[in-house]
C-alpha cells in the first residue's frame, strides 16, 4: 500500500530544492488557473457570453470556444475545486516526493477540464475531452512503478478509450448533421436524423459520457484510478472531472438531441439508480479510505444522473414545472458533491500522510492527534450522507421532491419506475450513511489500530489552511444554498433553452412553486445546532457541578482493559450489510492454517484474507476479453507463417476482382 509517504518522513529525506520549485510552481499555477476560472465562469453565468475563434490553431477544424450558463456552472465548480486542491498540491507533492511529471501535469489537467465545457464545436469538444482523459491518465500513471497504480491506470485508459469511441461515433454523426457544427450557440436543430439512428446515438453517447462519471457498466476504472492517483488529483478527478460526464449528458443527450421519447429518461434513471446502489454497497465494504470515497463518487453521480433522468422523463411528459425541480436537484447535488468530495479527499489525504496508511483498519484515533483533518473529514462525510446539515441534503431533497411530484400517468412503466427509483435511492442514502459512519467512526474516532496512527503527526499548517477553507465552503453551502441561487437559474435556463419562471426558489427557504413543498436548511441547521448547544450547556454545567471521574477504564465484561485490536474494525462494521448483499459485493474469504504437528491438532499460524470484487470486473469483462481473444486466435491461425496460405489469399483476391470487375 502507500508506504512511501511515511518512509519519506521517517528517513528524514527532503525533496531536492529544484523539485520543490517545481512543486511550488505547479501549486501556484493550479490556484491561479482556478482563480482565473472562477472569474471567467462568473462572467459566463452573469450574462456576458465568451466567444473565441482561432482558425490557425488545430488542423482541419480550428479552435472555437464559446459559453453559456451551463458551461459557466461546470467551469465554476471545476475552478473552485482547483483552488482548494491547488493549495493542497504543494504540501502533498513535497511530502510524497512525487515525480516532476505529476507537478507538470496537474495545472494542465485543470486547464483541459476548464476547456471542455467551453468547447463550442463538436471537434473541439472531442479534442479537449480526450486531452483531459490523456492528462488524467498520465497523472494516474505517475506512480507507475507501483503495481496497483499501473493496473489502475491501464483500466482507466481502456475504459476511457471505449467511452471515447462511443462518444466519437455519436458526436461525429451529430456534427455532420448539425447545420452549424456547433455544440454551443449553434442555431437550428439537427436535421435529417432517422429515429432509429437518433436512438442509437443517444444510447452510445449516454453510456460514453456516463462512463466518465463512473456509471455502470463502464464504471470499473473509477474505484481503481481515483484512489491510486496522487491525492490532489483524486480530489480533482472525483470532484471535478466526473462532473464533465454529466456535462456531456446534459449538453448532448438532453439539450442537443432535442425532444426525447420517454424511454430515454427511463434508461437514464435506471442506470443512475442502479449505479447509485451498487456503488454505495461497494463504498460500504471498502476498507481503503480513498477507495471508499471513490465509490461514493460513483454513487453521488448516480444520484445526479437519476435526477437528470427524472428531468428528461418529466420534460417528455411536458411537466416542465417539476422537471425544473429535478434539474435544480441535479445541479445542487453536483455542487454539493464537488464541495464535500474535494474536502473529503484533501482531509483524507492529510490523514493518510500522517498515519502512513490508507486502510481504515490501521487508522483510528485521528481525532486526538489530528483534529483539523478529522473534523474536515467529518463535515465531508456528513455531506456524503445526504442528511440535513450536510452539503448533500438539498440536492437529494429536491430530487426526491421531483420524484414525489411526478404525477401519476397512464404509463405503467413510470408508475412502477418512480416508486422503485425512490426505493433504490433511499437504499442508497441508507448505505451511504453506513459507509460514511464507518469511514469516520472507524477511521477517525476510536482508538489507534496501528503504530502509524498512534504516532501520526499533527496536521501541518498549510494543509490545515486548505482543509479549513474547504470546510467553510462546505458548511456555507449546506447551511445557505441561497448563495448559488442565480447560478442554478442560469444553468437551468441554458439547459432548457427557454427563459422560464424558475419553479424552484432558493432563498433562506427553498420553495417549490406550483406545488406544496418547502424546506429551510438554514432554519433546520441553526435549530439543531442551537438546540444541541443548549442541551450541552445545561447538562455539561450540571456535570461540572457534580463530581466527574475522568479516565475510567473501558467496560470489558469485567476483564482487564480491552486491547485496541479488540475494537470493531472496518470489515467487521460492514459485515452484516455485506452478508445481506453478498450477491452484489461478492466477498471472497480464505482461511489458511498451518499446523505445528502432523496430526493437525496444534495450530501454528493462521492467515485470513478477504476481498470484495466488482462483479462486472470479474464476470462481465473477462467474457468480453475471452471472446475477443478467441476471435484473435482464429485470425492468427490464418497467419501462421505459411507462405502458401498467404499466396492463396492473394490469389483469391485476384479471382474476386476478376469476377467483380466483369
Amino acid at each position, binding site marked *: 500500500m502507500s508506504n512511501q509517504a511515511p518512509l519519506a518522513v521517517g528517513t528524514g529525506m527532503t525533496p531536492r530544492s529544484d523539485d520543490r520549485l517545481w512543486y511550488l510552481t505547479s501549486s501556484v499555477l493550479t490556484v491561479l488557473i482556478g482563480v482565473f476560472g472562477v472569474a471567467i465562469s462568473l462572467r459566463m453565468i452573469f450574462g456576458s457570453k465568451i466567444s473565441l475563434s482561432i482558425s490557425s490553431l488545430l488542423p482541419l477544424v480550428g479552435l472555437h470556444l464559446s459559453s453559456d450558463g451551463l458551461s459557466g456552472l461546470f467551469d465554476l465548480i471545476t475552478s473552485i475545486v482547483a483552488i482548494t486542491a491547488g493549495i493542497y498540491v504543494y504540501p502533498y507533492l513535497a511530502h510524497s516526493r512525487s515525480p516532476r511529471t505529476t507537478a507538470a501535469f496537474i495545472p494542465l489537467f485543470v486547464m483541459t477540464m476548464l476547456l471542455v465545457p467551453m468547447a463550442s464545436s463538436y471537434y473541439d469538444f472531442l479534442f479537449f475531452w480526450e486531452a483531459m482523459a490523456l492528462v488524467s491518465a498520465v497523472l494516474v500513471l505517475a506512480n507507475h512503478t507501483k503495481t496497483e497504480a499501473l493496473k489502475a491506470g491501464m483500466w482507466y485508459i481502456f475504459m476511457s478509450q471505449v467511452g471515447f469511441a462511443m462518444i466519437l461515433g455519436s458526436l461525429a454523426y451529430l456534427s455532420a448533421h448539425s447545420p452549424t457544427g456547433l455544440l454551443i450557440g449553434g442555431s437550428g436543430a439537427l436535421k435529417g436524423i432517422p429515429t432509429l439512428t437518433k436512438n442509437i446515438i443517444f444510447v452510445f453517447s449516454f453510456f460514453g459520457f456516463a462512463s466518465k462519471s463512473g456509471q455502470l457498466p463502464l464504471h470499473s476504472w473509477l474505484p481503481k484510478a481515483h484512489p491510486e492517483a496522487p491525492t490532489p488529483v483524486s480530489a480533482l478527478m472525483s470532484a471535478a472531472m466526473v462532473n464533465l460526464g454529466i456535462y456531456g449528458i446534459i449538453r448532448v443527450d438532453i439539450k442537443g438531441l432535442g425532444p426525447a421519447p420517454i424511454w430515454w429518461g427511463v434508461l437514464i434513471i435506471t442506470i443512475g439508480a442502479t449505479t447509485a446502489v451498487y456503488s454505495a454497497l461497494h463504498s460500504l465494504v471498502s476498507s481503503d479510505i480513498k477507495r471508499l470515497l471513490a465509490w461514493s463518487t460513483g454513487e453521488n453521480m448516480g444520484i445526479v444522473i437519476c435526477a437528470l433522468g427524472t428531468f428528461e422523463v418529466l420534460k417528455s411528459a411536458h411537466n416542465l414545472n417539476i422537471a425544473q425541480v429535478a434539474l435544480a436537484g441535479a445541479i445542487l447535488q453536483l455542487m454539493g458533491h464537488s464541495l464535500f468530495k474535494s474536502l473529503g479527499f484533501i482531509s483524507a489525504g492529510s490523514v493518510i500522510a500522517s498515519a502512513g496508511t490508507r486502510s481504515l483498519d490501521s487508522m483510528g484515533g485521528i481525532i486526538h492527534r489530528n483534529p483539523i483533518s478529522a473534523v474536515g473529514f467529518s463535515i465531508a462525510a456528513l455531506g456524503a450522507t445526504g442528511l440535513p446539515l450536510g452539503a448533500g441534503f438539498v440536492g437529494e431533497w429536491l430530487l426526491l421532491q421531483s420524484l414525489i411530484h411526478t404525477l401519476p400517468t397512464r404509463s405503467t412503466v413510470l408508475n412502477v419506475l418512480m*416508486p422503485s427509483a425512490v426505493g433504490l435511492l433511499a437504499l442508497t442514502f441508507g448505505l451511504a450513511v453506513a459507509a460514511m459512519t464507518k469511514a469516520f467512526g472507524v477511521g477517525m474516532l*476510536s482508538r489507534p489500530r496501528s503504530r502509524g496512527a498512534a504516532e501520526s503527526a499533527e496536521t501541518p499548517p498549510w494543509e490545515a489552511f486548505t482543509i479549513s477553507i474547504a470546510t467553510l465552503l462546505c458548511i456555507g453551502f449546506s447551511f445557505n444554498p441561497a448563495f448559488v441561487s442565480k447560478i442554478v437559474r442560469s444553468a437551468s435556463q441554458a439547459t432548457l433553452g427557454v427563459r422560464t419562471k424558475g419553479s424552484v426558489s432558493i432563498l433562506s427557504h427553498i420553495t417549490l412553486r406550483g406545488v*406544496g413543498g418547502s424546506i429551510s436548511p438554514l432554519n433546520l441547521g441553526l435549530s439543531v445546532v442551537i438546540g444541541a448547544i443548549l442541551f450541552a450547556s445545561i447538562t455539561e454545567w450540571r456535570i461540572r457541578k*457534580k463530581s466527574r471521574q475522568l479516565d475510567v477504564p473501558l467496560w470489558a465484561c469485567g476483564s482487564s482493559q*480491552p486491547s*485496541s485490536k479488540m475494537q470493531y474494525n472496518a470489515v467487521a462494521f460492514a459485515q452484516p*450489510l455485506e452478508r445481506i448483499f453478498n450477491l452484489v459485493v461478492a466477498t471472497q474469504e480464505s482461511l489458511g492454517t498451518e499446523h505445528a504437528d502432523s496430526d493437525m491438532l496444534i495450530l501454528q499460524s493462521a492467515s485470513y484474507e478477504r476481498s470484495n470484487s466488482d462483479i462486472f470486473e470479474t464476470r462481465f469483462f473477462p467474457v468480453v476479453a475471452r471472446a475477443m481473444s478467441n476471435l484473435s486466435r482464429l485470425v492468427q491461425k490464418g497467419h501462421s507463417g505459411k507462405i502458401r496460405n498467404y499466396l492463396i489469399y492473394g490469389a483469391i483476391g485476384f479471382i474476386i476482382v476478376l469476377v467483380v470487375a466483369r
Partner: protein
Amino acid sequence: MSRNFIFSGLPVLQLIMLGLLAPIVSGVARQISAKLEGRQGAGVLQPYRELKKLFQKETLEPSTKSIFFTFAPYVLASTTAVISMAGPFLATENSFSSSSDLLSVVGLLFLGNIAVALAGLDTGTSFGGMGASRELTVSSLVEPTILVAIFALSIPAHSSNLGAIAAISLSKPNLIFAPGSLLALAAFVVVVLAEAKRFPVDNPSTHLELTMIHEAMLLEYSGPRLAVIEWASSLRLTILLGLIANLFFPIGLFRVGQAPILLLVSCLAFLIKVLLLGSILSLAEVFMAKLRLFRVPELLASSFILALLSVVTSYFFTATR
C-alpha cells in the same frame, strides 16, 4: 392576533408538551407489559424517577473518548426536539413547519442515530462498534421503506409536508381507508418499530451482548448524559407514535384559524392516541419474540414491498379517478 400568536407559539408548545409527556409514554408501555407478564410493575412514573436519578449521578468518562462522545447525546436530543417542533402533533401547521417536511424529519432521525453510533465507535470498545454496526445495518434498510411509505402518503396530498398530509387525511377521511394508505400504514408501523428500537428488531431492556443493538452503543454513558439519551429515546418513541397517529388518524387535530380552545382538544386527543398506540405496542411485544439480526432484513424487505405496493396502488387509484 391570537392566530399569529398561536401559529408562532405552537412549535414551542409542541416541544414542551412532547418533552414532558415522553417519559409517560414509555412508562405506560412498560407498566402494561409488566401487568401482562404478571408482574407488579414500577408504575407509570418510573421513567421520571430514573431520569432524575441519572441526572444526579456522577459522570464516568473513559480515557479514549473524544468530543464526539461528549456531544452525541445533545445532537440526539436536539434533532429529536427539532422534529417535535416541526411535526403535526398538535396542529396541521405552525411557524416552523415550512422549514421542514417528512424527508427532513427522517433525515434528522437518522442524524440522531448516527450521532449515537459514532459515540459508540468513539470509545473503541467491541460493544460500541458492534452496536453501531447493527444500528446502521437496520437504519440503512429502514430508510427505503420510510421514504417509499412517505411517497405513498404524499401522492394524495401532493406534498411531502407533514402538515399537508395530515390535513388531507383530516379533510378526506375516506382516503385513510384506501388500500394504498392501509398498506402504507402497515409498512410504516414496521419501520417505526425498527426506528424506535422495539421488538421484534431490538429489545429495549436487554443488556445481553449478543442481542443488544441500541444499548450496546450506550454502555460507556453514565449520569446526566445518559439521562439526556434516555429522555431523547422516549421522545423519539412518542414522536414516531405521534406521527402514526396524526398522519393516519388525525382526528381532533387542530388547524390554524380554528378557535384556540380546540387546541386543548387537540392536545388531549394526541395524548389519548399516543398512549393508546403505546399500549398496543406493548401488548404486541408480549406476544412477539425478537428476531435474529439476519432475519431483520427479511422483515424490513417485506415492509418495503408493502410500501412499494402502496405507492403503486395509490398511483393506480389517483390515476383512475
